[in-house]
């Protein structure tokens, strides 16, 4: 495994029962970069990241994280390895308060001081969460929930943070904020793997990009060069 890579996915095949949805996926994520996975609805983006975190099983292939094979680990064991994901449904506990949710984010972390520190960082990033600290997560607006999801994931001290459709259902001003936070996170040496339908924004923010087409990697490359490809312009950017 290349030392500069934090995540390597080799020859991954994934399916639900007999229905295969992803074929021979190969992905490399370099440390301290933002890598995006784009693709149309139903191209298998969510399935891919769910398999990387272990929520759904794989048929064959290898997943290596920080030079360690993790394909056989259970989801919670992968979180302990500092592989953290924010799922598309945000992954919150609706009947716990904002503060309790943040504390649950630190479940695998032994050092209490680190949890406290990360919660304060979360409140700095999203001041509204501090105001809502003792309110149930289920009573927050969609934007606030996404902010909480982000803050909660950061409490788990991720080395690699996977985001599944973080912008879905949010107002543009909040999407701007979320993407700004991703840039801040990168500066703190957290690698980001971003799954997005918002192709324009994710190409702008990411360093490298994979394009999923019908369950296969159709194209990959530096985001700056992908942006100029005729096919991408036509299919995803509407130009």
């Amino acid at each position, binding site marked *: 495994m290349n030392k500069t890579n934090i995540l390597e996915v080799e020859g991954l095949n994934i399916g639900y029962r007999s229905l295969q949805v992803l074929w021979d996926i190969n992905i490399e994520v370099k440390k301290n970069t933002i890598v995006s996975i784009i693709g149309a609805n139903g191209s298998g983006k969510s399935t891919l990241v769910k398999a990387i975190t272990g929520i759904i099983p794989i048929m064959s292939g290898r997943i290596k994280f920080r030079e360690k094979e993790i394909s056989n680990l259970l989801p*919670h064991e992968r*979180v*302990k390895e500092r592989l953290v994901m924010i*799922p598309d449904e945000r992954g919150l*506990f609706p009947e*716990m308060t904002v503060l309790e949710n943040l504390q649950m984010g630190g*479940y695998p972390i032994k050092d209490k001081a680190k949890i406290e520190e990360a919660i304060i960082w979360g409140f700095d990033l999203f001041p509204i969460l501090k105001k809502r600290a003792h309110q149930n997560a289920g009573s927050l607006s969609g934007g606030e929930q996404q902010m909480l999801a982000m803050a909660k994931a950061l409490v*788990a001290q991720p080395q690699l943070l996977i985001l599944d459709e973080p912008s879905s259902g949010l107002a543009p001003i909040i999407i701007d904020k979320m993407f700004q936070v991703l840039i801040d996170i990168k500066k703190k040496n957290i690698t980001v793997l971003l799954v997005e339908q918002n192709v324009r924004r994710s190409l702008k923010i990411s360093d490298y990009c994979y394009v999923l087409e019908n369950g296969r990697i159709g194209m990959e490359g530096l985001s700056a060069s992908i942006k100029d490809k005729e096919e991408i312009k036509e299919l995803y950017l509407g130009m």
Partner: protein
Amino acid sequence: MALQYIVNGLMLGIVYSMIGVGFSLIFGIVRVLNFAYGEFFMIAAYAAFFLASVFGIPIWMVFAINFILMFAVGWVSERALIKPLRYRTDAHGEHSGVIIATFGLQVILQSLALLLFKGTHRGADNYTSGNFMVGDILISNERLFMTVVSIVVLLCILAFMKYSKVGCALRAVSQNRTAAQLSGINVNMVYGIAFGLSTALVAIAGTLLLPFYNVYPTVGVIPMGKAFSVTLIGGLGNIGGAILAGPILGVLEALASGYISTQTKDAVAFACVILVLIAFPGGLGEMLKRIRTEWKGIRR
């Protein structure tokens, strides 16, 4: 006289709360209806009978032994029976295998008890005796003892769920299983603990109610009926609702057996379940939650 019935009903109802909380715990967290729940009650009652009446072990130790022993029994049942079936679904994608397995466990445990202990009703002496008057109301020490033990156990469970790390993990799994996994919670461990805790709760109830109901191989149908009534009135998987529903059921039963006849009390209880489900399909717990949210809205 009515007041006397109500007080008696309230005191017994707290024990029903405990039975209901245990049943709800499994449904809320593991999403399984445990049909062998009453049989765990039966095992605990037999254990209490032999420990206390035959070997003469002090009563507080009987409770402690039963709690630990039955926690282990619950844990092992989950590991051996539920876990292997959890990921198997039938043609419709339902986990019917798990429910049928708990039903099978019920039959096996009942038959084993019949084989080992025959059909004899075994009773125990009351744990305490005597009674006292508060105004016109007669309170027996035995009932008071049951009530106090149940309240203490329930408070411990609530504190455990609210403040301990494992308790938070239990609540997390019941609210969002995938999110719990992604937060680093070992869901399999949580299932085992939930099953163990639930079984330990019904074991305390089985020990408490031994002098009340006696013990015989099919005694489990009584707590099973209470568990169903309490969880349906309170809302499936809702612990607060179950705690509230216990005393309601207890009072209704006491009034029915006092004013009509003892035979009608179960009919009255189930009629009440049906009425509650018509009025509040989610149970009382759901209604409480709505009131609380609206109250918060008004205050703000």
